[in-house]
């Protein structure tokens, strides 16, 4: 009973923080990509909140974890969580009509779970079973929702409207969400987040050096997203347009 009351309270806290951040940050309105990022003013505020959160909590924890955990162990943890993505990947492969690939994902999951110590070792890749990356956002994109507005979420970082919606389906299929919903177990989520953050520590220097870290994160996210939607084979950039005089 307690937890039922707690959960909406948590959500309310997140919303309050969001509103407070939105209200107290400056009213600067830049439009560096009006087409894909029409809410840039709002997004920048959440971005700078996320960066502060990362500087004082996310990054220090990830650095500590990275110092304590040897690389092979980290790889094992990452493998374990990626193996748990299987239900989401499988379901979305079916939704996109990728039946052959969904079969490979199933073999992969079974193989790694049985022979890779519950997914800790990615033995499937070594025997030639490729890893696929599918999620609800990508499914919505293949169903026709190709362009979606960029949206930065508090704590969670870069998203699009489509991918936020996609993400909200996660709770039904992902074992990590299942653990939270049914068992009130937050440890898997937290370890996964720390491991993910630790794997990005290398990118911090580039981000720090960037002229505008906000656009660097946004452009990288949107490009990488398109790459995944097209399963690694996106249309070639229109480089000729880069030379033209249009804004």
């Amino acid at each position: 009973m307690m937890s039922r009351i707690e959960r909406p309270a948590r959500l309310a806290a997140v919303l309050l923080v969001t509103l407070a951040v939105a209200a107290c940050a400056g009213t600067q309105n830049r439009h560096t990509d009006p087409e894909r990022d029409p809410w840039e003013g709002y997004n920048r505020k959440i971005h700078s909140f996320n960066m502060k959160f990362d500087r004082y909590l996310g990054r220090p924890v990830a650095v500590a974890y990275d110092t304590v955990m040897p690389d092979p162990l980290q790889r094992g943890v990452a493998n374990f969580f990626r193996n748990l993505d299987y239900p989401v990947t499988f379901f979305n492969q079916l939704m996109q009509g990728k039946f052959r690939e969904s079969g490979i994902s199933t073999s992969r999951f079974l193989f790694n779970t049985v022979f890779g110590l519950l997914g800790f070792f990615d033995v499937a890749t070594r025997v030639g079973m490729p890893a696929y990356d599918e999620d609800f956002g990508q499914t919505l994109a293949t169903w026709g929702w190709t362009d979606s507005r960029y949206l930065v979420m508090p704590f969670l970082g870069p998203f699009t409207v489509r991918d936020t919606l996609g993400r909200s389906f996660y709770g039904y299929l992902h074992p990590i969400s299942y653990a939270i919903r049914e068992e009130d177990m937050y440890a898997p989520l937290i370890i996964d987040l720390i491991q993910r953050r630790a794997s990005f520590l290398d990118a911090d220097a580039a981000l720090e050096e960037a002229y505008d870290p906000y656009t660097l994160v946004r452009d990288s996210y949107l490009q990488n997203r398109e790459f995944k939607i097209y399963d690694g084979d996106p249309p070639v950039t229109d480089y000729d347009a880069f030379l033209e005089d249009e804004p």
Partner: protein
Amino acid sequence: MKTPRTGILLACAWLAATPLPASSHLDDPAQLVSDTAGRILTRLNENHAQYHQRPELLKDVVREDLLPLLDVRYAGRLILGRSGRDASAEQLDAFTEAMSNLLINRYAEGLLQFRSEEQLEVLPLRGELNERMTRVRTRVRLESGGFAPVDYVFRRTDGGWKAFDVVVEGISYVTTYRNQIMPEVQAEGLDAVIARLNQGQLVLSD
């Protein structure tokens, strides 16, 4: 009736005057990528310990072996876009130089993580070859056992196929740098950007 024939003759003469590529691989960008990577990695493996101690030596290797394959001038024009319209030739040269130094440094740093040639796999071209532009796709095997897809975008120049963009997991260097640098040039001017790029280079080679 006279002009077209003269034109054709002139074209033939020009073709004859153009030195033919020494071997056919100059016509095959995929071959270019694997040859170049092979050459750099061989040199890397021969002197791995030395390069670890003195990374600037590896930068020279990269400069010698990789730079001739790149069309840095064109990449620079793409990155600057309309913000490079008013730039002088000297400014463009300085910008291109600063960009390629930065790129070489990054590449050399990345190379030190490499262990063997088997880590790089060049995938066959998939009907993407056209007269002007093509994309060579490779996969880099990561320590984790997974792969990072790295594509090289080539264009045909008078000096053969040259790469002008690198796309790592869908993230294009040219696009990303362009989105960073164009607003910076507009806000602070090209000279300030060149100075900062050169400074970054100093910091990185420390």
